[in-house]
């Protein structure tokens, strides 16, 4: 019962970060800003959700496997995001500016 409540709180935190990532995917103006929103918020959401699952699983081999999934996603998610951003930059995608006619002025 206590474990369910703690897991529910952790799930709620994770879902908040997933919601922020989804909001960024819809609302941000160009590709790089969308990627920025997804990368950080989704990594935080994944870690919190998996922490809730570990609390639900208790002390077992399953919890160890869940910890491994969490560590893997914690490393792999920023890595794949970085690879996508580098590919976009090397193929000449331009970052978004607020006013295209005043690009040179700071």
């Amino acid at each position: 019962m206590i474990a369910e409540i703690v897991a529910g709180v952790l799930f709620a935190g994770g879902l908040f970060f997933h919601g922020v990532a989804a909001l960024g995917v819809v609302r941000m103006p160009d590709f790089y800003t969308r990627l920025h929103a997804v990368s950080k918020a989704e990594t935080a959401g994944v870690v919190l959700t998996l922490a809730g699952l570990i609390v639900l699983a208790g002390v077992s081999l399953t919890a160890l496997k869940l910890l491994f999934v969490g560590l893997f996603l914690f490393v792999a998610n920023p890595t794949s995001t970085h690879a996508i951003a580098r590919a976009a930059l090397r193929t000449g995608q331009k970052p978004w500016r607020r006013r295209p006619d005043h690009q040179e002025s700071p």
Partner: protein
Amino acid sequence: MSVAIAAAIVLLALVLVYVYRLAMGPTVFDRLLGLSGFGTKTTLVLLLAGAGYERLDMFVDLGLAYALLSFVGAIAAARYFERGGQHR
């Protein structure tokens, strides 16, 4: 209804946003971003459904395999489009 199933249902609703970006993205990299987020969310939904149905010991292996495949697929697609594919 357990708390894990409720969280899985909310995550499935959030996956629709990534499907929108996957279908409508202006550039191919937007689609790649949608695919990467879709894979991560699918892993989490698998694990949450496993916890909801009391079979987490089986589903955790499936989730680990899916996370590995999604990561390798995203890296491979990014390398392919970096070397020059169709950019629209």
